[in-house]
């Protein structure tokens, strides 16, 4: 059973609808017990870093997430803000992140010029894959995803980066570390490309021999 965490900062409907469409059972929850008992977890997010971290703490979800993810190594997929919360910290706020990934979240910054890209990065963009990962099975450079963000990941370990994109400069958009996965873009808003990705996550087993 896939559990999609509702920490009052996000729209879960499309994620659940996509899982339904690919024939996978998924439920929404704000309950720590459901997280502990989940087979897999999705942490979505539309919002600001501090608000996200504070909600996770106030709702008592951080301990359950830490236990499920770090101790029991349940597969987890972070989406947009969800992924950013996995990092150590963000330029956007003062709170510490969950710290599961050796990465920080930084604001886009371009040299001042009339042709500098606008911030936030909003729209469809293609991605490239520095190393293969089952999360992107069946997706190639024709794949495009919807991005809507002013802050992006900077990984401290390039080997953990499984997708990059370009907006003014190249930047990290997806990371994988054992059972912990995350994507900066919104698969639930990326039509068939997102469907494929969520299908892959549902089918994925981090401990399986390939």
């Amino acid at each position, binding site marked *: 059973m896939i559990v999609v965490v509702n920490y009052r900062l996000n729209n879960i*409907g499309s994620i659940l609808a996509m899982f339904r469409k690919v024939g996978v059972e998924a439920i929404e929850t704000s309950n720590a017990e459901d997280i502990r008992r989940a087979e897999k977890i999705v942490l979505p997010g*539309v*919002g600001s870093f501090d608000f996200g971290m504070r909600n996770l703490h106030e709702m008592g979800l951080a301990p359950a997430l830490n236990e499920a993810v770090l101790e029991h190594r349940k597969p987890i997929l972070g989406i947009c803000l969800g992924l950013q919360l996995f990092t150590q910290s963000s330029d956007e706020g003062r709170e510490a992140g969950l710290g599961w990934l050796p990465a920080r979240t930084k604001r886009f910054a371009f040299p001042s010029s009339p042709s500098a890209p*606008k*911030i936030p990065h*909003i*729209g469809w963009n293609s991605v490239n894959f520095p190393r293969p990962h089952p999360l992107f099975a069946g997706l190639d450079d024709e794949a495009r995803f919807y991005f*809507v963000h002013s802050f992006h990941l900077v990984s401290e370990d390039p080997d953990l980066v499984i997708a990059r994109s370009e907006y003014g400069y190249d930047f990290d958009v997806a990371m994988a570390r054992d059972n912990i996965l995350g994507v900066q873009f919104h698969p639930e*808003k990326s039509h068939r490309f997102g469907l494929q990705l969520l299908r892959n996550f549902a089918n994925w087993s981090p401990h399986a021999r390939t």
Partner: protein
Amino acid sequence: MRVPRIIPCLSLRGSGFVKTEKFKNPKYLGDPINIVKIFNEKEVDELMVVDIAATTEQQQIKWPLLKQLASECFMPVGYGGGVRNLDDVHQLFAIGFEKVSLSSSALSDRPLVEAAAARYGSQSIVATIDVRKTLFGSYDVVTHSGTKKRGLDPAVAAKSLADAGCGEIVVNSVDRDGTYEGYDLQLISLVANAVGVPVVALGGAKSLLNLIEAVEVGGASAAAAASFFVYHGPHRAVLINVPSPTEIKEEFRRFRAIGK
């Protein structure tokens, strides 16, 4: 190649989608759920839904309908119309909208803009600026479906809203609305040059070329339209039609290669 967004914009009035001309004479288009389903199937980049009666007729946001609409879409959907407080903003995200647009409220309630952006991030908060040309040829921001003049220059308004935290500005030409006269490129440039956030052009699009020009010539980051997507032919028969993502990409590529 990054392809700028092409965004159908649908006006909600009562329980149906309508199309106006210069913000007047709304004509019924059809059932919102059916229309949105078609756009989803055709894999449009993004959708905007605007309740054009919510502010002027002081109506409540149509929660059940909107929840259904949002659930049909595997692409981002933004909503505007009668958003008055942070609860409204929260609810809209909860039911599935990716972005919330403030228009009348954006100009009269700066603290709301700031609070919404601080909590949900600038990337989720859009300001929609409706603009009418004055008799002297300058531009004036209007609100309440074009019925109230603000005596405000759109570039100044846009800059103020971006400073308050809006991550995207939709600039809507009242004069071009529903006319097929093409975008007001001068207006779009004025606003696009004033802010560092993406600007979305709206009002007057007749062709895919117009949409591309709004970006490549006007400096918008995306082009929105209504009539172009919902009408067909000189008699404006209702027919939902959307160029495919491949076609859009090809047309952008062609424009960039040869300049027109």
